[in-house]
């Protein structure tokens, strides 16, 4: 029974308590760049989920094989391999999404969520929990992107997932679909999460170097990024 509870906790951890986008503040680039439309954001989320799941499982399986000093390069190669697979699948089956995501599909390789989870979780846990963690984090990422894209598309372009909303047509705030609107909405969402949780959400600081993807090849004693978020 407790086993089941623990695996459920691993799964839901990424969705709410440690949401990668809104609480851990990882993977900011795709969050800002692909949330202009709901379809693009959800597509990005699902692509990242697939890569995250595969790389977590693979890295967890190889956790006793990969030598300590070579782990970051190994992780990057594994992740880049899965990104290539997912990219080819998207190109073959959803060409319109492939067009709209463009270079950001390739950039899943350097998405800090995936490398971060590999380093923080998959390299230390058995396969099943690593897979659950990957799914949970992926869903959390997709939901956060979807929420942000909903705000930006509904108020910025008066449509939802490409379907026009009639009564908002005269009140479009076009600014929201542009670059500065993304930064603004993200800032407001983070402030909202902080206000709702009263700052009780685990701060990045509490992860110290563990939570930082650069920690492995970083020799800075007191780094600026370490105590950065909140």
């Amino acid at each position, binding site marked *: 029974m407790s086993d089941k509870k623990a695996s459920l906790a691993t799964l839901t951890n990424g969705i709410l308590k440690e949401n990668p986008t809104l609480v851990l503040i990882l993977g900011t680039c795709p969050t800002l760049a692909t949330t202009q439309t709901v379809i693009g954001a959800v597509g990005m989320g699902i692509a990242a989920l697939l890569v995250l799941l595969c790389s977590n499982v693979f890295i967890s399986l190889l956790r006793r094989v990969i030598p300590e000093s070579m782990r970051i390069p190994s992780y990057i190669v594994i992740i880049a391999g899965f990104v290539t697979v997912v990219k080819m699948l998207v190109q073959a089956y959803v060409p319109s999404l492939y067009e709209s995501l463009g270079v950001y599909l390739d950039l899943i390789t350097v998405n800090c969520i995936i490398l971060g989870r590999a380093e923080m979780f998959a390299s230390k846990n058995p396969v099943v929990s690593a897979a659950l963690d990957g799914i949970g984090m992926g869903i959390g990422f997709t939901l956060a992107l979807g929420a942000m894209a909903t705000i930006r598309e509904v108020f910025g372009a008066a449509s939802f997932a490409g379907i026009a909303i009639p009564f908002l047509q005269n009140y479009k705030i076009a600014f929201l679909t542009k670059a*500065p609107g993304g930064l603004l909405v993200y800032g407001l969402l983070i402030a*909202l999460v902080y206000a709702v949780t009263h700052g009780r959400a685990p701060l990045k600081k509490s992860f110290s170097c563990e939570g930082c993807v650069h920690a492995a090849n970083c020799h800075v004693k007191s780094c600026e990024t370490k105590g950065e978020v909140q």
Partner: protein
Amino acid sequence: MEEIKTLLVILLSCVFVDNYVLCRFLGICPFLGVSKKLNQATGMGVSVTLVMLLATAVTWPIQYFVLNTLGLGYLQNIVFILVIATLVQILEMFLKRLSPALYEGLGVYLPLITTNCAVLGVTINNILDGYGFLESMVSSLGCGLGFLLAMVLFSGLRSRINERIVPAPFRGLGVTLIAASFISLAFMGFAGIVEKIFA
């Protein structure tokens, strides 16, 4: 003359109009993380520019003379990220040996650059845009300078924010992102200017 004009247009658009940080959202992590003080922002910006130039100089020939000739275009992603990671390591070793003073200044930022999406982004974008070698180098220079400009501007803004009292929920990242939003809004004003200048 025509060629110089094209190169200038690419350079200026990369710095101002299509600024990687503020308009294309690449390299947001170092932009938010290392922009607290002016000297750190400058160090990071210069290091990124250097690595971008080097990475483009190596990945462009690899793409056209190795991957394309052998029909291995699909390996682009894996090859590029490995090349960048190796380059950063080599650059770090070189700097340590040749110029300890420069290493002191830039060395600490180099490990952070391996997983910087702006560097991978610029190398892939150069291929996607179909640029020639010279155009690719100029576009990398422009993107690097644009990154440096955004970092320097933003560090100035942040030192101002640090002196003010900010409502609790916005403290930290919230207010930082909103400030970045305003800088990005200012940069939107450059849209269309570059083409007009050379028209």
